[in-house]
């Protein structure tokens, strides 16, 4: 099944594809004053627009915060890119400790299904398939970074990004 979602610009320079939000201008010299103030405070170096673009999701497709104590499924197709990575952080933006040192998946190591969808499971306990340990963090920040994307790709009418679904909570 494919999930078609049109990208929209929210007027403040953000770009939404499903639950995934990007700030394309933050990778350019024209980043707005708020973005610049926030980068200066946090020490972030946003990726340049010719390197790629990052999308952030903090909620599932029902609008609930992604909870690391639950099992959450991220499934679907990604916008075209030479490579993509999916990384999860805790609510404070730190990588989540786990014995496998597994913090994310790349497009080169993830397993795709017959329809070409990637399916990634966020869960505090081991899960079959592509499993990302959440370490029971209450809040999860999921980041998809698309590297070397065709220009303007995210603005297409049929832009696709994976759906985020809460499957089970304890």
């Amino acid at each position, binding site marked *: 099944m494919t999930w078609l979602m049109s990208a929209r610009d929210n007027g403040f320079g953000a770009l939404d594809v499903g639950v995934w939000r990007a700030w394309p201008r933050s990778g350019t010299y024209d980043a707005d*004053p708020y973005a610049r103030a926030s980068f*200066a405070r946090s*020490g972030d170096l946003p990726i340049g627009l010719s390197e790629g673009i990052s999308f952030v999701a903090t909620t599932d497709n029902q609008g609930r915060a992604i909870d690391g104590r639950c099992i959450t499924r991220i499934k679907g197709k990604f916008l075209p890119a030479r490579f993509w990575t999916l*990384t999860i952080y805790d609510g404070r933006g730190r990588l989540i400790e786990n014995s496998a040192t597994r913090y994310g998946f790349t497009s080169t190591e993830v397993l795709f299904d017959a329809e070409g969808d990637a399916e990634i499971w966020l869960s505090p306990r081991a899960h079959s398939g592509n499993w990302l340990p959440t370490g029971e963090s209450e809040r999860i920040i999921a980041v998809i970074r698309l590297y*070397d994307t065709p220009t303007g790709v995210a603005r297409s009418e049929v832009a696709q990004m994976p759906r985020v679904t809460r499957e089970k909570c304890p």
Partner: protein
Amino acid sequence: MTRFLLPILGGLVLGGLVHIVSIFALPQLAQNDAYARLERLGRTNEIVQIPDPTPFESLLPRLDPAFVFAACVFDLSHGPLAISVPTTPDLTSVAFYTRRGRVFYSLNDRAAARRSIDLQLMTPEQRALLPRDEDLTAADRLIIESSAIQGIVFVRAFVREEGARQNVRQQLTNAKCGPLSAAR
């Protein structure tokens, strides 16, 4: 009633002004921005390898753990710089930031003619001083103009699976950043 209106309005306008001024001033005042953190790691105009981020430590916030990073904190006040970054097996990119963390140029290995990305970084004034013939023979060299005297060159190299990390890291140790005069 009306005698309260003016002070309230005045307060709102003043609050708004303070907010706008602080937002614009923050990048100048931030003590712990990327430049300050990288500067502590090594000398200026030299390549420094960034340790891989872990759950306990990350030099810069929210780095992509699927990458290996290196940086060069630059200062052009003593002349242009030559930068050379070997292309790693999968994806290598270079981004240029001002002292305040604004990206002013970025490119990836698609732009590299050979097995390395070779760039020269200089101010518009320094470029104007280049001998004309040298500018011509330099057709295969990419010159990046920087309006910022100080800033950051940040190198990102993709690691397709963890087993490849050591190899990519090893290749990035061959990255160079230094005075252009010394490179010739």
